[in-house]
Every structure is written in C-alpha cells, then in structure tokens.
C-alpha cells in the first residue's frame, strides 16, 4: 500500500546569532493511512519542529512532505492540530472555540447541523455539560479535551498532537488517551503524536519513531508495536512483550539517542531483545514516576 504521508530528506535550519543551526536533518518517514505513530525523543531534539512542518505552520528548509499526494506548503484544516498548550481562545466558550473551526470546514451546512457537529464532539470528550463555559474558566484537563474536540470536529485527514497530555495528572491522562483512541478508531484517522512518555507511546501507537538528540536530529530507530486493538492497559501490563518494547525504547533514549544511525532507520526490523529480570527491576525503579 502506498504511504499516506511521506516525509523525505526533511531539514530544518534556524538562523541564530551564531550562524544557521540545523535542528532537523535527513528526516525520513512514511506513514500509512489509518496508522497511529508516536514520535519520541529528548526534550529539545526537534519533535515539535517536525510536527509543525507537517502541520504547515513552520517553513520547510529542505526536503519535502507529501500528504495524500499533495505537497504540504501551508497549514489547513485537513490536518487537525492539538497544540502542546491547549491554546483555546480564552474569550470564547468551549463551544465557540470548536464552532470556529466547524464554521470554516462545514460552511455549506446549516447552522443547526454545524451546532450539532460541535456539540457531538464536545460531548464525546466529556464536555457536554461545560461547553458553554468560557474557556478561561475551564480546568487544564477540560481545555485539553476541548482542544481535542476542536481538532476532531474539523474531520481532518490527519491528526497532529504535540504532547497533548504532558501537563495533566495521570488519571485524566489515561482517560483522555482512551478518548483519543476511541475517536481515532471510530473515524479511521491517521495520527501522529509527539510524546515524552514511553508508556503512552506504547499504549497508543502502531509504530514508535525514535528521534536522535539535536542538533541535526533524525530518525534513530523505529519500533513496531503489534499489540492487538482495542488495547487494554491491564492486559498490556501482563504481556512480557510490553516490557521488551519498553526496554527497547528506554535503552534508545538512554544510550543510543546520542548517535546518529549509519544507515537509514526506515527499513530496520523491529529489534526487541528480551530484557533480563534484573534489567526489568532497574527499569521499574527509575521509571515508576514517569
């Protein structure tokens, strides 16, 4: 099957007082239609930069991005973005924030239909009762929900999420991950989520793309995650393969992310050596808090 999103030889260079700084270099990735991709890497390596280039919000320095056959040159409602900070417009209600997008995309629909679309997505994310509150009065978690509803209500071809749950408590985070998976499965979207959180990546994604450290960051490794869907947290925690995958990601972040790969990571088989019991315990000790 041909790829839905194709990123080839992507570069991003920022001008700095000390001359141009190449943050992202030779970034290659192909994403199939309906696939859920997680992008992980250390803070500051350029994950947001890659995401905003796909979103069309940042200029591409070199290389190209092709989304369902068309080159990405500008932002547009075919890519719903959930930003790192929820960035709702604080003077509008949750409903109005979602409506702003719905009005743009469904401009041929009647007012009633548009209202129904907005209300449908808002109640899906659990904001049914609070949708007419001003967004400045919503809690962080409610804002994030609204951000997700806004992105989904555009009915985009692709969802781009930049650490959408980074600032939330664990309980809300898990709930919203399920909301996200639910919506993704229902609407058959293609999704790309940027995250720091190894468990989040494994719970959500079909493939986890690991980025090397910046500057000159690129794809270091890709891990296939083949757990059956719909996924269940408890079952996942009982699966030895889960710990193998987890160890693979953590080893990458701790040790291998500092080196650029010698050959493109694209075609590598998912190498997942089984961890020793001692290694596992060590893992739990240091990552229990994340």
């Amino acid at each position, binding site marked *: 099957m041909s790829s839905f999103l194709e990123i080839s030889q992507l570069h991003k260079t920022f001008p700095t007082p000390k001359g141009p700084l190449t943050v992202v270099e030779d970034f290659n990735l192909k994403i199939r239609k309906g696939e859920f991709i997680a992008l992980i890497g250390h803070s500051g390596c350029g994950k947001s930069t890659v995401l905003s280039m796909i*979103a069309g*919000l940042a200029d591409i320095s070199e290389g190209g991005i092709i989304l369902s056959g068309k080159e990405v040159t500008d932002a547009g409602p075919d*890519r719903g*973005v959930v930003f790192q900070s929820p*960035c709702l*417009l*604080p003077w509008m209600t949750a409903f109005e924030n979602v409506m702003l997008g719905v009005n743009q995309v469904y401009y041929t629909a009647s007012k009633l239909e548009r209202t129904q679309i907005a209300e449908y997505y808002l109640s899906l994310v659990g904001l049914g009762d609070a949708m007419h509150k001003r967004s*400045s009065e919503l809690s962080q978690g409610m804002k994030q929900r609204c951000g997700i509803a806004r992105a989904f209500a555009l009915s985009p071809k692709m969802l781009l999420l930049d650490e959408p749950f980074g600032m939330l408590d664990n309980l809300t985070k898990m709930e919203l991950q399920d909301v996200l998976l639910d919506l993704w499965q229902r609407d058959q979207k293609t999704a790309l989520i940027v995250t720091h959180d190894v468990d989040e990546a494994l719970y959500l994604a079909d493939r986890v793309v690991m980025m090397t450290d910046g500057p000159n960051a690129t794809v270091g490794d890709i891990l296939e995650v083949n757990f059956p869907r719909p996924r269940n947290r408890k079952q996942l925690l009982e699966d030895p393969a889960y710990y193998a995958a987890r160890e693979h990601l953590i080893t990458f972040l701790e040790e291998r992310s500092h080196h650029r790969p010698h050959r493109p990571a694209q075609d590598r088989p998912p190498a997942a050596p089984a961890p020793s019991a001692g290694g596992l315990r060590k893992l739990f000790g240091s990552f229990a808090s994340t």
Partner: protein
Amino acid sequence: MNSQKFDHFVRRFVDLILLPCIGLGIVLVLWSISSATWAKELPSPTKTWEASKPYVVEPFAKRGEMDQGILRFTWYSLQLVAKGYVIALLIGTPIGFFLGLSKTFTKIFDPLIQILRPVSPLAWLPLGLVLFISMGKEAGTYGALFTIAICSMWPTVLNTAVGVRAVPQDYLNVGRVLKLSRWKTLTTILLPATLPYMFTGFRLSLGISWLVIVAAEMLTGTPGVGGFLWQEYNSLIYEHIILSIIVIGVVGFILDRLMSLVESRFKTA
C-alpha cells in the same frame, strides 16, 4: 465573630476616610499658612470657599457667557474632550494595529511618532489655529480638537501596537490551521486578544485629553473650566483659579476611575 466584623469596618474607615482626610488637613494647613505669610495674594481656604460658593451651590446656573455654574463649565469641557478623544481613538487605534502588524510600517513611522509624541499641547495649539483659520469663528474649537486629538492619541497608538505584537503565536496558528480569512483573523483573534492593551491605551489617552483641554481653552477662550480659570486670573479673582483646579483634578480622577472599571472588565478576558 461580630468583633471581627467591627475590626474590619474600623480598618476600612481608617484606610478610606481617616488617612486621606489627614492628607487633606495637612494641605489645608500649609495653604492657610502660605496665604497668611509669604504668598499674600493667595486667597485663604475660607475666602476661597466664600467666593466659590455661588458657582458650587448653583452648579448649573447660567448668568452670562463666562459667568456660569462650575458644573456647567465642566460639562462644556467634557463635551469638547469627548469629541477630541473620539477622534484620537478613531485615528490612533488603526495606526496602532498597522504598527503592530507590519515591521515596514513601524520602520517608516516609528521615528516620526517618537519625535511628535513629546511635543507639548501648547506647541500644537497655535498650529491647530493656523490649520483651521478658514473656519473663522470656529477656528478655536477646531484648533482645540486638533490639539486634544494629536496629543492624546499616542498612548492608544503605542499600547495597541504592543498588544498586537503580544498576541501569542499559538492563537495565530489556530487561525492558520482553520484557514481563517484575514478579516476573520482580525475580528475573531487579533482584536479580542489586543483589547486589554487597547483599553490601557484608551485610559491613558483619556487622562491626557483632559490635561490638554485646560491649555486649549485657555488659549482659545472657549467657555469651559479652563477658559473660566484663565478669565478669572485676568480679572484678578484668584479664588476661582483654585476652585477650577480642584474641579479639574476631581473630574480627572473620576474619569480615570471609570475607565479603570471598564479596563478591568476586559483584563479578565
């Protein structure tokens, strides 16, 4: 519990009434001493009150062109200020937006603004009179409006520009993802996001318009608090100078408070 309420009441009384009254008392004492010793021409507080009484007790009386109740004069002044102020906002806000949006526009006009901004109303007024000389009798009024507008618009211009520049990139990105038109971006994102800054500018501008009115009325002889003040100086009725000063101060204070109220409503947005 009751005594706590009482304590609270006492504290508010001290803070809001007693302490300000002490300040007022000190000024009255200094004023009395000055008028009795080194400033012989300065009328004492009691003399000032006696001479001002007809203007204060009948604040809306109209006995002649330049002999009217003090609030009637104030009302004339406020009308003039309102007109000049509205002109300032109508011109200043769009200029502020252009400055905030366009670097080129800023480079062209910012130096000019920085040079014109510190020019005193006393310097603008003669130019205003010259500009509107063809208006004949009305030249004074138009000159005054011109002066109020040009002196008071700068805070609006600068604050609006700062506000537009401070709109978070995230908000604009939302607009780009949704492919909002330029007009839609302006009205649904830029304008609401800038509003709190704009209102800070509006408040400062109002303060300046009120400051300018006195100078403008003095030089043009238009009836109003400022015109009255200048006329009474020329007629050697110094008590009325003090009366005018007090009224100008109080009105300015009230205007500022009212604008702060409006401003704070937008600040919470």
